[in-house]
């Protein structure tokens, strides 16, 4: 795999206005807005909102990166790349890593705003959890994005991505904090990886409704393995067909 290829991928995303607005500016703005509306000075609530908006930004950026695969497939860019020494696994790895790279700005920006503007204070381990922790927990989302990009067409990408993003953030306890969820909704949330993504950060800011970090990591690892397998199988089928 090539660093030049990764850098080009990242640079291309940075040229995309929609990406900059929705995945980088939006989470920060929403965080500030929500704190103004809901927090009323409650430090715990501010902390939860910070974690949730960090998770939202990171997961939407990771999904976005994968969605672009649909366009590249329809263009024949994958075919073009098959005429270079870049292997199929190299291409998929580059796409996955790009998703992770694109998730970085949110993972840094939202916590920085939380600390500097909103006065959230955590110990070192806590900060590590809400930054690096959430960042690593977004791996299954980078893969989900890839899978969607491999299955969908450029035309269907917008609705599929919106639906995925809404399901993940609404039902997974990102936009509607799990504290306010009725129990039936909470049961649904448990099915989604976004619930566990939120849990990775949540434990650092509140002990209420928090699960053991190890459990969250385990569930996310299972998601990663399952979706990863899907991505690899889909790629094999895709390239055999051409």
């Amino acid at each position, binding site marked *: 795999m090539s660093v030049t290829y990764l850098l080009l991928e990242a640079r291309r995303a940075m040229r995309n206005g929609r990406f900059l607005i929705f995945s980088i500016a939006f989470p920060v703005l929403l965080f500030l807005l929500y704190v103004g509306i809901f927090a009323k000075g409650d430090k715990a609530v501010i902390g939860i909102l910070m974690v949730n908006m960090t998770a939202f930004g990171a997961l939407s950026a990771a999904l976005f990166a994968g969605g672009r695969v649909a366009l590249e497939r329809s263009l024949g860019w994958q075919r073009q790349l098959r005429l*270079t020494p870049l292997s199929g696994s190299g291409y998929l790895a580059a796409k996955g890593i790009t998703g992770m790279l694109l998730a970085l700005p949110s993972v840094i920006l939202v916590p920085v705003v939380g600390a500097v503007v909103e006065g959230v204070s955590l110990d070192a381990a806590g900060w590590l959890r809400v930054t690096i922790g959430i960042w690593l927990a977004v791996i299954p989302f980078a893969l989900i994005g890839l899978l969607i990009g491999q299955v969908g067409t450029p035309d269907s990408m917008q609705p599929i991505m919106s639906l995925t993003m809404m399901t993940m953030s609404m039902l997974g306890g990102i936009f509607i904090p799990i504290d306010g969820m009725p129990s039936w909704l909470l049961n649904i949330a448990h099915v989604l990886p976004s619930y566990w993504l939120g849990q990775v950060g949540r434990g650092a800011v509140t002990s209420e409704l928090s699960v053991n970090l190890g459990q969250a990591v385990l569930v996310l690892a299972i998601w990663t393995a399952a979706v990863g397998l899907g991505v690899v199988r889909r790629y094999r089928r895709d390239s055999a067909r051409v």
Partner: protein
Amino acid sequence: MAGLRKSYGDVHAVAGVDLTIAPGEVVALLGPNGAGKSTTVDMLLGLTRPDTGAVTVFGASPHDAVANGTIGAMLQGGALLDDATVGETIAMVASLHRSPMPVAEALGRSGIEDLANRRCNKLSGGQKQRVRFAVALVSDPDLLVLDEPTAAMDVQSRREFWKSMHGFTSTGRTVLFATHYLEEAENYADRVVLMRAGRIVADGSVAEVTSLVSGRVIRAAVPGATEAALAMLPGVTEVNVRTTRAEISTSDSDATLRALLATYPQAHDIEVTAMGLEGAFLSLTSEGADRS
């Protein structure tokens, strides 16, 4: 390439192709749409696996040849990323190869130095083709495969393209190009391979392929002549009459012409031409043509 076959359902896209290309040859692959050119090219590049038969490129499989950078290809409508610049695209492709030529050289050879900072979505059709050429070139390949390289180019850019191509082939590299433009095959190829319905129907130098189809074409204004009457003349293989102008294909132009003038003394503006590659192409690739 030996015994290549590839079918899609009931369609035999390639039905037994054997082709050996020597290093340094410039080969044109000709044929009407659906003749199996693109499928053949795809198999040569390892993009499509043949149902039967084998492809060897410099002693290696197509996949290994691609991985080694010994084979470079410009695909029909090959993709470029809209939001990347020309320079970035070429540099990225170069970075994937082990021993690429300098990016500046690839840009220079393709005549697109001045476009390096341009985004790919701001290019004209001809410019895009030259960028694709640079993408194929940057791995510094020994074999260059081009599928319809000058489609979407105007006359001027087509000429410039072949000039840069010439700069490449004069270094002893091997080139295989598929084209619709017979003139390009005539002017730039050492060897012409004609395909029809998934098979090779002619293979040789332009002169050899042309001579496969013996015969000439007589064009003349022949007032009062009908197609049926002209077809009765000796040697005639095909007749076309448009208003008063007749186009007569013949296997014996001398006999046909003598008879024509004897029967129609008023015939005038007479032209006799060799069939040329176009005539050979049409007669060898038309549906009814027998395998020679």
